[in-house]
């Protein structure tokens, strides 16, 4: 059992929890993820780590309530427990001194990009960050990102904060400005990571994305998380989650992300119909 020590709402339907897991907190590195299962009937879901505190022995998870499990997770409060938590899983981000790095985060994807950005800043890179969301109500971690970036750009779909439009509009401006970019790291919805990768491809700018496909065990055992990268099939849980965005087959990734769309709907129905699920309590 893993105790939730802190809980807060960051933005509309985006929540943060800190969970006591001392060994995990001391081991985890930027870019890695965990898998959790809330209770006996729960499914195993992967969440990329948003932060960890080795001193306090806690890890930070930031998630958007998009399905049954994240909704149930959203109903847990400080002092409640999560039944199972395992990690750190996946390979850590490759942190080195690249030069100028553009970190692009979209939606809840700003959460996992924050510790990577911080680590890249600590490795003496010049950081330009671009974060985006549907509106200012959906934007998270802007202050934190500001602290670890030389320059922070914000884009919102509705223009309620920063540039009205997409993060890729800003990325294009940065590229056009003639700044030498040594690396782009992009985490967000598939469609955003795909757009970023397509944007940087003609300029040959190395682009790293972090994939979050459907997983079960997270240790390479089941192969549910397979992604097509270049000519190969990779398992995101052990070979990733980070991959070269120019090599990822995005249509396979998008199709596979929809594999259980109908079942997810069904599970949500169970959630709202006042059944026996815990989220109604």
């Amino acid at each position, binding site marked *: 059992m893993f105790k939730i020590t802190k809980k807060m709402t960051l933005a509309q339907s985006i929540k943060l929890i800190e969970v006591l897991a001392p060994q995990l907190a001391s081991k985890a590195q930027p870019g890695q993820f965990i898998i959790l299962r809330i209770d006996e009937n729960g499914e195993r879901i992967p969440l990329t780590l948003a932060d960890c505190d080795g001193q306090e022995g806690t890890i930070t998870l930031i998630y958007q309530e998009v399905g*049954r499990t994240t909704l149930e997770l959203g109903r847990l409060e400080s002092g409640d427990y999560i039944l*199972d938590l395992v990690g750190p899983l996946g390979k850590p981000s490759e942190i080195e001194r690249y030069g100028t790095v553009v970190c692009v985060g979209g939606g809840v994807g700003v959460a996992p990009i924050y510790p990577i950005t911080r680590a890249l800043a600590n490795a003496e890179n010049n950081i330009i960050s671009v974060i985006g969301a549907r509106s200012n109500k959906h934007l998270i971690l802007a202050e934190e990102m500001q602290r670890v970036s030389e320059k922070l750009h914000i884009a919102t779909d509705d223009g309620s904060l920063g540039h009205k439009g997409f993060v890729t509009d800003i990325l294009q401006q940065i590229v056009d400005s003639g700044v030498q970019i040594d690396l782009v790291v992009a985490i967000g919805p598939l469609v955003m990571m795909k757009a970023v990768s397509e944007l940087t491809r003609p300029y040959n700018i190395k682009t790293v994305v972090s994939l979050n496909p459907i997983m079960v065990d997270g*240790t390479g*055992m*089941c*192969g549910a998380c397979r992604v097509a990268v270049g000519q190969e*099939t990779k398992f995101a849980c052990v070979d990733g989650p980070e991959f070269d965005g120019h090599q990822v087959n995005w249509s396979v990734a998008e199709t*596979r992300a*929809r594999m259980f769309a109908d079942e997810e709907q069904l599970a949500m129905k169970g959630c709202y119909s006042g059944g026996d699920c815990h989220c109604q309590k």
Partner: protein
Amino acid sequence: MSEVKVKKEKVSRQHMPVQDAQERKKNFNEVATGYSEDQALLEASRCLDCKKPLCVDGCPVDVDIPAFVKLITQREYQKAIDKIKEKNNLPAICGRVCPQESQCEKLCILGKKAEPVAIGRLERFVADWDLEKGQYRAEKALESGKRVAIVGSGPSGLTAAADLAKLGHQVTVMEALHIPGGVLVYGIPEFRLPKSIVQHEIRNIQEIGVEIACNTVVGKINTVDELLNNGYDAAFIGTGAGLPYFMDIPGENLNGVYSANEFLTRVNLMKAYRFPEYLTPIRIGKRVAVIGAGNVAMDSARTPLRLGAEESYIVYRRSEKEMPARLEEIEHAREEGVQFKLLTSPVEIIGDENGWVKGMICQQYELGEPDDSGRRRPIPIKGSEYELEVDTVIMAIGQGPNPLVPQTTPDLRINSHGNIVAEDATGQTSKAGVFAGGDIVTGAATVIQAMGAGKKAARAIHEYLTNG
């Protein structure tokens, strides 16, 4: 009155009672329901109690078979189970999933003329009796003060753990998943090995002092070196064959294509067959093709019928004779309606406009000369391609070794397949104090072979801890 010598009535091998095929293919209850006491007594009476019992030679963990069978004839069930447990820590599991026909029963003298004693069924009978009525007496050895880390809670790890605990060592088993048992819980279906049985056997092992730490991925949260530097005196690696193979044919990443591991893990470990009560989904279409013909393939083909599929095919590129699954599993699959497309292999999986499987291009094969494995080599027949209409494809063509421990243990020697190199008799690896056994060493094999390896390693670890 003169003594009349009663000639022992000739008893034939007792059949295992099973749920009716039409009935059982609609449920996940255990297929084989187990001997009644009368059947067990009759079956046990068939044993000749040979002076030099060959059956024992066929047992990877050296169970004293004639002794426990004799105790059954005397209705001494507690003593019979104690006798088995001297060597075997998981009897209720072995009685169900061991391939006895190619081990102990294969060597039974009775088998030369008629049918061998049903050793496995008798083992199951006493093990089940034990689960219900037995009184487990934990043997307490003098504490050695030594600590052993066991990586993986599958059959080899549990066996090594139990043996080492009995010898007085302090044992911690580290398991990546949220419940222990490895392939026994994620792989083998409920209808062949009820999970309550596995839990019970594991509880017995915990009762003799073995600690189990779930949600612990060695190679991630810690390394083997860290374990050895932080208080463990030795380590056993039994991480299994946890990396599914795919065929590398077009269409394998379509929706509706699963590895057998994923499919079985969703259904068995995560109880997707009870979705949405349990939240892990599984999607089974109407027509399912399983590629491969081992035990995992049979499990993968029988499960969809229970989930409502109309057709379930085994697609295998060799012939019936070469199928690696146990005969009993093949028969059960056939009775339940699994269809066999033999000398057939897929060359491509075809998707619909939404990225879902809608068919599979199959090619037919004929058998040529024997290959390295001694089996006749399948040769594709040109122009024999045809489309099989399916909406789910399950790849059950084997698993490779899980790389997490080898990758993070630099001085651990591995072979070209990624298996850990370990001595056969001891499990000793290239690294001092580190032993390995089971599928991570041999490649995918059976539960009992893994248990045998765990047993040998436990002996060797005890020797290492005692005499250095």
